[in-house]
């Protein structure tokens, strides 16, 4: 029976001989280059379950089954609803231990009260929402401000300690309410000072001045010229991609020059940056390419009579393809609007096709302060050091977080990766967000943890109310970050 290159698997009594590159009878263990390896342990179970749900032990050792379907370590306790001890420096409500691959892990679970917190909102749109630094209001109260424009998106910064506690009582309450709704995935209507009204909801397209934004642009006007120049070449003499940031002109643009597109004598209003790229062709707005213009010809000056010619074909299009118009010059070199030729409608459709769906995305940002850290350990700064040293993993409702470098534990989390209704509030006003710290039991002892409060995962469940949620397959398993519960090898 032995085969030169087969290895014998001793994971179970079947004792399969496994050839290189193949799996044993179980589909779990395989021969990878002569090594016995376990492929994803959840594969078979996931096939049965069809998605990465958590499973719980049954008839576990001598323990009698009491009809309870909760167990460990394939269950992870999130901090949602855990409560908090603020402002008393008492141990966090739950300090839970579970065994992962033979290592005792503890998870300190608490709901943090965050006065220092807010949300960063990314709104995928070309439309001008309002001048940078202007106030963003909800229910008439200032809750944040317009910050930078990013590629195809406008960022808002909402909340923060100044709005929560630094203004009037009502400003604080409305800010807290706005943050709470955004974090819990609800729609919120915001007004930008001297700008637009926007309905923002995490994971949904923005609604700007009552218009649903469907797509984000393919690129700035200049980038769009670069991307589609070849498709336009020969089918049209001139293309202007109207964009509030950088309007592109095919015949002057480097991409057009390389293709040998002749000069057309076009003259664009606005400030020329580099050849074929124009800034400030109009005022910002919610019409063509994020400008305020309804008629694209408004950004053109008369064509240069020495260069332009009657019959010259001109396409004007916005960066999403949503707006477009086709013109030909008459005998007096004035553009006359005509139907878009079929040869060009394809390229306009292509621009649209390349635009991704526009979304609002919401990141919660908060800092784990003194009392919260004191609930984890008697020596709070050691928790910070432990997080920095990557010995302690921070999660927010089981979702992965980004820890901002530098001092303190300031983190950001995508609220759409957290369980539903994970956030709460206190009338302080402040937001209540779940936060979990997971680390090895021995490391927990080292940093001055409340060892006498550590409880086994199985022990907390029966009498304390709890809710079971299915782990999101896109999130790493909090106790086991290298693998995703739903992933297959």
């Amino acid at each position, binding site marked *: *029976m*032995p*085969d030169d290159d*087969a290895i014998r698997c001793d*994971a*179970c*009594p*079947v*004792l*399969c*001989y*496994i*050839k290189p590159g*193949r799996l*044993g*009878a*179980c*589909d779990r263990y395989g021969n990878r280059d002569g090594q016995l390896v376990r492929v994803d342990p959840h594969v*078979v*179970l996931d*096939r*049965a*379950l*069809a*998605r990465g*749900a*958590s*499973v*719980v*032990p*049954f*008839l576990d050792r001598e323990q009698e*089954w009491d*009809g309870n*379907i909760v*167990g460990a370590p394939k269950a992870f306790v999130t901090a949602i609803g855990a409560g908090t001890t603020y402002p008393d420096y008492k141990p966090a409500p739950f300090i839970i231990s579970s065994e992962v691959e033979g290592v005792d892990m503890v998870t300190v679970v608490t709901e943090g009260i965050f006065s220092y917190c807010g949300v960063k909102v990314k709104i995928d749109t070309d439309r001008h929402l309002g001048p940078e630094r202007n106030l963003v209001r909800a229910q008439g109260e200032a809750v944040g401000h317009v910050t930078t424009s990013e590629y195809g998106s406008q960022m808002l910064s909402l909340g923060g300690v100044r709005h929560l506690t630094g203004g009037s009582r009502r400003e604080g309450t409305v800010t807290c309410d706005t943050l709470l709704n955004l974090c819990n995935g609800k729609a919120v209507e915001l007004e930008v000072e001297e700008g637009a009204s926007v309905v923002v909801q995490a994971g949904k397209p923005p609604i700007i001045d009552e218009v649903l934004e469907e797509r984000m642009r393919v690129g700035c006007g200049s980038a769009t010229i670069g991307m589609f120049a070849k498709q336009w070449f020969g089918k049209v003499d001139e293309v202007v991609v109207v964009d509030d940031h950088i309007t592109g002109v095919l015949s002057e643009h480097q991409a057009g020059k390389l293709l040998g597109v002749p000069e057309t004598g076009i003259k664009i209003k606005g400030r020329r940056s580099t050849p074929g790229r124009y800034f400030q062709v109009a005022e910002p707005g919610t019409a063509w390419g994020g400008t305020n213009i309804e008629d694209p010809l408004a950004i053109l000056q008369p064509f240069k009579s020495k260069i332009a010619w009657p019959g010259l074909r001109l396409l004007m299009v916005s960066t999403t393809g949503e707006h477009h118009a086709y013109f030909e010059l008459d005998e007096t070199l004035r553009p006359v609007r005509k139907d878009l030729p079929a040869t060009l409608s394809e390229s306009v459709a292509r621009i649209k096709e390349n635009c991704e769906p526009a979304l609002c995305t919401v990141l919660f940002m908060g800092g784990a302060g003194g009392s919260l850290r004191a609930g984890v350990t008697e020596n709070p700064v050691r928790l910070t050091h432990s997080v920095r040293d990557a010995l302690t993993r921070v999660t927010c409702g089981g979702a992965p977080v980004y820890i901002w470098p530098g001092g303190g534990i300031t983190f950001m989390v995508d609220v759409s990766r957290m369980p539903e209704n994970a956030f709460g509030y206190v009338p302080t006003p402040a937001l209540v967000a779940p936060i979990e710290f997971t680390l090895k039991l021995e490391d927990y002892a080292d940093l001055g943890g409340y060892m006498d409060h550590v409880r086994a995962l199985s022990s907390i469940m029966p009498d304390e109310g709890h809710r*079971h949620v*299915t782990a999101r397959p896109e999130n790493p398993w909090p106790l086991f970050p290298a693998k995703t519960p739903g992933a297959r090898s």
Partner: protein
Amino acid sequence: MKERAQIQLLPDGRRLYLHDGPIDVILEAFGASSEVRAAYEAAGRRFVSLLDELCAELAILRQPVTRESARPAGTVAQRMVAAVTPYAARSFITPMAAVAGAVAEELLAAMTRAALLKRTYVNDGGDIALHLEPGQQFVAGMIDRPDRASLFGTAVLEASQPVRGIATSGWRGRSFSLGIADAVTVLADGAATADAAATMIANAVDLPGHPAVFRVRARELAPDNDLGDHLVTQGVGDLTAQEIGAALDSGEAFARTLLQEGLMRAAALHLRGETRIVGLPLQANPVENPAGDRSLTDA
């Protein structure tokens, strides 16, 4: 290593999942909660030693069954041998052809001995043993390719009918096949007999010597496989409509023989989107949810 077997309730709180080595079982019992609990405990108790018992006699179970074959001692092994013996005279078969169905049957027997249940299914990787009290029924979903779980139809199994076992076999599945059927689903009186019949009918859906069928000796893929030097299907290229028809004809003729001999009650044979149904009452009722992310059998 008694900790090896995993026995867990799935998150729905209703189904029990059992895993040991290559065995993955999902079962569900219906009845009074105390009875269901007793049945699950019985299934768990029976399960923990089951793989060890099988492996102790693996050498016997991997040999073709003949008159001179040694008789195994284990109850699961005996179910396997009983299920494949009717085929031994006409072709090559080893008890391993019925292992999954026999495991399902054994767990079902342990549960129904221990508790009074209205109905129960034990699904061992697609081979299913059923228990039905009078008046009860199950709706079984049917898939046309084991590697892509999409339901093409459902079959209603009533207590008044003799069917208590369902099995599916095909070259795309977890076990090797000598034939080219994408899937053959069989209804029979028990899960082990259904398993053996599905294996044999799937082997019979074939085009011997066809150049588009890629076959490899089982030994070269898995040195200790019971199929040894037999050629197992690893790929099927383009087939004409006539060729698909011919392969299905061959499988269907064999299935009709088994039907006459009472070895199974109904079979659905699938190859390249073509389906042949043999026997009754296996009907491919269209399903509303073809995405079918449910387990093969559900209430």
